[in-house]
């Protein structure tokens, strides 16, 4: 019985000869909102996809609540990719049905309430919604699960400010002491108020971790400022 929600040890991933993750070590405890922060190409998405079960590591270990990536771990993980993965012809309620069928921790009542607040009818098909609304519907569906680990890959990239507030709002409202939310982003100043901890990732390795409040108390610095310092010479 382990309390760590996510544990990576010497996690390495190669795409052919390109190295995406370089013997990465990381441990996440429960009840935290964590920012996975790094420039583009640093390995954020690769790490998240391995945790979600979409990629198999080249070497090293990864454990989600003690489970290796498997149907058991997938039942505990809620993954939100950058794009919508529901088929265009599906109605909103059919997406809910799908989640209800496969995930025991799906709270359909909560999902329906949130959809109603958005002003979207459950009968609407995905293709009838705007891109922004589609993404919000998917966010609502994914966040309506009582998962142990939420993996949000760039949830606010390319999103207008009002929608961004809605997304952060939804994340905060769905916070629970039993789960961990990992948000990967390169838009740090927009999310840092929401974070408990930050993880800097660079060239497939964890560069630095820490608590956001501790950083602000002890060094009077925002995470955004620290990031700029640390990655100053990042030329991409």
């Amino acid at each position, binding site marked *: 019985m382990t309390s760590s929600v996510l544990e990576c040890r010497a996690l390495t991933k190669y795409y052919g000869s390109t190295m995406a993750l370089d013997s990465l070590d990381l441990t996440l405890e429960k009840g935290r909102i964590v920012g996975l922060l790094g420039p583009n190409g640093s390995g954020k998405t690769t790490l998240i996809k391995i945790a979600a079960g979409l990629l198999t590591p080249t070497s090293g270990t990864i454990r989600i609540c003690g489970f290796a990536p498997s149907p058991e771990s997938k039942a505990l993980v809620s993954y939100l990719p950058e794009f919508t993965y529901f088929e265009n012809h599906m109605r909103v309620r059919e997406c809910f049905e799908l989640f209800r069928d496969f995930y025991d921790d799906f709270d359909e009542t909560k999902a329906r309430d949130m959809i109603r607040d958005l002003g979207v009818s459950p009968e609407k098909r995905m293709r009838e919604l705007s891109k922004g609304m589609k993404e919000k519907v998917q966010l609502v569906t994914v966040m309506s699960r009582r998962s142990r680990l939420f993996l949000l890959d760039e949830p606010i990239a390319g999103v207008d400010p009002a929608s961004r507030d809605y997304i952060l709002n939804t994340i905060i409202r769905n916070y629970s002491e039993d789960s961990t939310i990992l948000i990967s982003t390169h838009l740090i100043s927009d999310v840092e108020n929401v974070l408990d901890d930050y993880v800097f990732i660079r060239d497939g390795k964890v560069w630095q971790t820490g608590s956001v409040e501790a950083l*602000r108390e002890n060094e009077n610095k*925002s995470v955004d400022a620290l990031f700029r310092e640390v990655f100053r010479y990042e030329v991409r």
Partner: protein
Amino acid sequence: MKWEFNGKGPIAAQIVLLVEQAIARGELAPGEWLPSVRELAAEASVNPNTMQKALLELEQNGLVNTVRNTGKSVTTDTELIRATRDRLVEESIRAFLADMKSLGLDRAEVSALMERRVS
């Protein structure tokens, strides 16, 4: 009330200050019920743990009370509220005087300025 944070100091401390100001101004009435920690955090777009920490401090200062199984409310202790307002005024004045000093004004000049302004 408006939730605005700057990028420097810890958020919890900034929350405490903002709530104190709101109570001192009367934006938050004495005895008024506060939303849940999560609601407040969502409103302010901050981390719930941070909001919790700030509310704890406010409770320790006596400005916020927790009623078990019901929620949190602003204190009805008008003495305390006045004392808080006075403290905030003091801090504001101190900051103002420090500003003026850094701009090269001495006590007499500041006094004269205030006389002209206030009359």
